[in-house]
């Protein structure tokens, strides 16, 4: 025991000596000059709640990325109709020559099928004042017709037939019978199959159907035979603007449908979420704070919550004209319930905290307590709910369309685009019809989710003070 004691004494002495050395340092005891500005500084902190919330929010890299993505999607959604060359979302596009709908065209970034290099002779037909339907198909020879083969190329043979000279594919399909010595030309051939004669050794048709060319780019020689100067672009559709997302099963432009649908869905989401927040927060605060209302509203909640939403949706669309505003109204009728319940539970937790008791004792009016004491405390959780309410409303629109009481096809929305796309999912080449609306919907949802969560984190004073 004593040994420990002396050791302790030694240590204490060492500390004391060190201390004395420091204290004898005169600089520690210099008087500061009088400075009125620093006197003002005491007790002031430049802390502002929203300032530091935003600062914490902007520091979060994931949240900023999500914000930028969402901003770009929103911006593009609303700018898209103003861009040049956009199509009407509901117009059915037909092939101008055959009149058949341009069904299920695959997505493509360009309409150019090929660019011509030489003076190719074309067979052309005017579609309208700007476009020609063209192909280099000059004749079709029915079977068992004699024609003369004048030259053999790799996959093609050059032929003469009733004064027309042209090229014929020499492949498995045409099955041209080869002579014993194929290079002993000319050679009389007989085909058992339909043979197509092209003006040059290339197949300038889109799987047998017409290609399109701007009429200004076609030249005619003295015999009125059309030819294309070099650099002429042949297009798959009579338009310089491609079907970027392809077309759907009746030949509507999926690109404009998807963006128009995104606009509709975002509008539904925003308005429903706004109503949800407004009604939900108001009812929720009253429900939580006014004790006399608690029993009544709880029972009312139990009743309304148990009435199937489908009945309400069907009844509303029966009474009112079906459309976007009816859908918004019908969805708003029930969606505020969840918000109200949520706000009420939060209010119940904090309503009897000491600061609220103090306010009440000081005679603060209940309205002021609700608005000034309770509501600001809930900002972060309410913002989170709001951020999730928008994609939530969009998602429930998908469900409503799925059960068959959503918007009609004339009003594209992400819900009915996804449901149309679902029908073609079994065929791999048509899966793009489901992919595009789903990707947009997921992007919007993920962005809102990340933004909402980060903002709720940032708005929690524990995380930034």
């Amino acid at each position, binding site marked *: 025991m004593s040994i420990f004691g002396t050791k302790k004494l030694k240590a204490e002495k060492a500390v004391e000596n060190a201390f004395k050395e420091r204290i004898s340092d005169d600089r520690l005891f210099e008087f500061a000059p009088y400075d009125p500005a620093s006197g003002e500084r005491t007790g002031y902190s430049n802390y502002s709640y929203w300032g530091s919330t935003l600062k914490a929010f902007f520091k979060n890299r994931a949240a900023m990325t999500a914000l930028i993505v969402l901003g770009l999607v929103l911006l593009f959604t609303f700018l898209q109709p103003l861009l040049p060359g956009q199509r009407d979302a509901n117009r059915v596009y037909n092939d101008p020559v055959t009149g058949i709908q341009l069904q299920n065209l695959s997505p493509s970034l360009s309409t150019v099928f090929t660019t011509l290099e030489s003076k190719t002779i074309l067979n052309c037909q005017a579609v309208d004042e700007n476009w020609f339907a063209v192909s280099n198909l000059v004749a079709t020879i029915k079977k068992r017709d004699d024609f003369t083969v004048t030259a053999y190329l790799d996959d093609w043979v050059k032929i003469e037939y009733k004064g027309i000279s042209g090229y014929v594919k020499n492949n498995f399909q045409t099955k041209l019978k080869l002579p014993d010595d194929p290079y002993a030309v000319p050679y009389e051939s007989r085909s058992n199959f339909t043979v197509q004669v092209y003006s040059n050794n290339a197949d300038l048709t889109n799987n047998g159907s017409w290609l399109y060319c701007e009429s200004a780019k076609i030249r005619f020689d003295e015999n009125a035979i059309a030819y294309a100067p070099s650099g002429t672009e042949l297009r798959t559709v009579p338009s310089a603007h491609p079907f970027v997302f392809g077309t759907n099963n009746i030949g509507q432009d999926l690109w404009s449908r998807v963006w128009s649908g995104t606009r509709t869905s975002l509008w539904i989401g925003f308005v429903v979420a706004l109503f949800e927040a407004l009604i939900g927060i108001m009812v929720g605060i009253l429900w939580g704070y006014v004790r006399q209302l*608690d*029993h009544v509203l*709880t*029972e009312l909640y*139990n*009743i309304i*919550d*148990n*009435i*199937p939403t*489908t*009945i*309400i949706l*069907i*009844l509303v669309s*029966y009474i009112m004209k079906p459309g976007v505003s009816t859908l918004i109204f019908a969805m708003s009728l029930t969606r505020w319930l969840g918000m109200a319940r949520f706000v009420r*539970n939060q209010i*119940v937790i904090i309503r009897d905290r000491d600061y609220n008791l103090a306010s009440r004792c000081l005679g603060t009016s209940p309205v002021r307590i609700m608005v000034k004491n309770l509501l600001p405390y809930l900002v972060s959780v309410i913002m989170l709910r709001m951020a999730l309410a928008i*994609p939530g409303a969009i*998602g429930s629109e*998908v*469900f409503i369309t*799925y*059960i*068959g*009481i959503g918007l009609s096809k004339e009003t594209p929305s992400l819900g009915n685009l*996804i*449901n149309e796309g*679902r029908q073609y*999912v*079994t065929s791999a080449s048509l899966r793009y019809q*489901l992919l595009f609306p*789903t990707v947009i*919907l*997921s*992007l919007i*949802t*993920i962005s809102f*989710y*990340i933004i909402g969560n980060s903002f709720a984190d940032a708005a929690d004073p*524990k995380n930034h003070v």
Partner: protein
Amino acid sequence: MIIKIALCLLAAGFIYLIWKRRLGFYVLKRVLLSLFSLLAIISVVFVLLRQMPIEGYFDNYDKLDEAQVQAKLHTLGLDRPILQQLIPFLKNLLKGDLGQSSRYSAGTSISQIIAEKAPISIYLGVASMGLGLLFGIPLGAAMALKKGAFWDRFGTVFIVLINAVPAAVYYIFIQLYGTDLLRIGMLFKRNEPVTWILPVISMSLGSIASYAMWLRRYMLDEINKDYVKLARSKGISPYKLMLSHVFRNSFVPMVQYIPASLLYTVCGSIYVESLYSIPGMGGLLVDVIGRQDNPMVQALVMIFSCIGIVGLLLGDLLMAMLDPRISLERRQGVR
């Protein structure tokens, strides 16, 4: 058999709890109050259904003349005043008679339809819920234990994706690729256990995500509390701290919803059941509302509301069982 034994044990547990914590009066009061709510729900739905368009009761409304329409409405009992329709319906309900389907499968007794369909949905639902708990709880706990580590990131991406991609879309891809992988047909067959796998997995993904998300949230809240800091500075082993303090306390708020979700498995999943053409309850309510089969709608609404009410009560009791600090009497109505 096993299910029956488990249910009996569960019921015995609840009765013991009610007796031990002297909650009999409380439970009785809640049940009586719920009966009034139930009556109100049924009446409101009953009245709402009578506002539906008359055309909806017919397959060929345009071809019928006025007399035929009236005759059909008379056989359906829809031409009487609402109160005269409601009272006999309630009387039958008291006798335990749910009535007969009018359009879905005309003339068949509703209890028979439900008895055929409900078990499949319950089996599928319980299996997927079990899978959800089995994977969701460990995932949530792993996410909370090491914030920012691999499992946290993996779980966050999983949760965000499951919430962002509409279920209608990823279910379809699970079906497409899953049936290819397992080399089975697209459709569900009751007697082939292999065909149960994909529907159960599809249905469990959502619950895995939600269990993991909420458990992580509650555990993180709990870890930041003062008593945990105290326990840690006292030197309790981290393993014991996590398991018997943090986990137990954060599981309590989740436990409240387990009985309700267990009971709600009766409702089935509308997407999954239509994809695999499972003859279950999923979408039955939506279907009969669309066909305006009023007796079926009323019966289903009543069953589902009962489930909701009983599930909430059981949840509260279970919560009280796990957390002795919770006093139901005082917190009554707070839930």
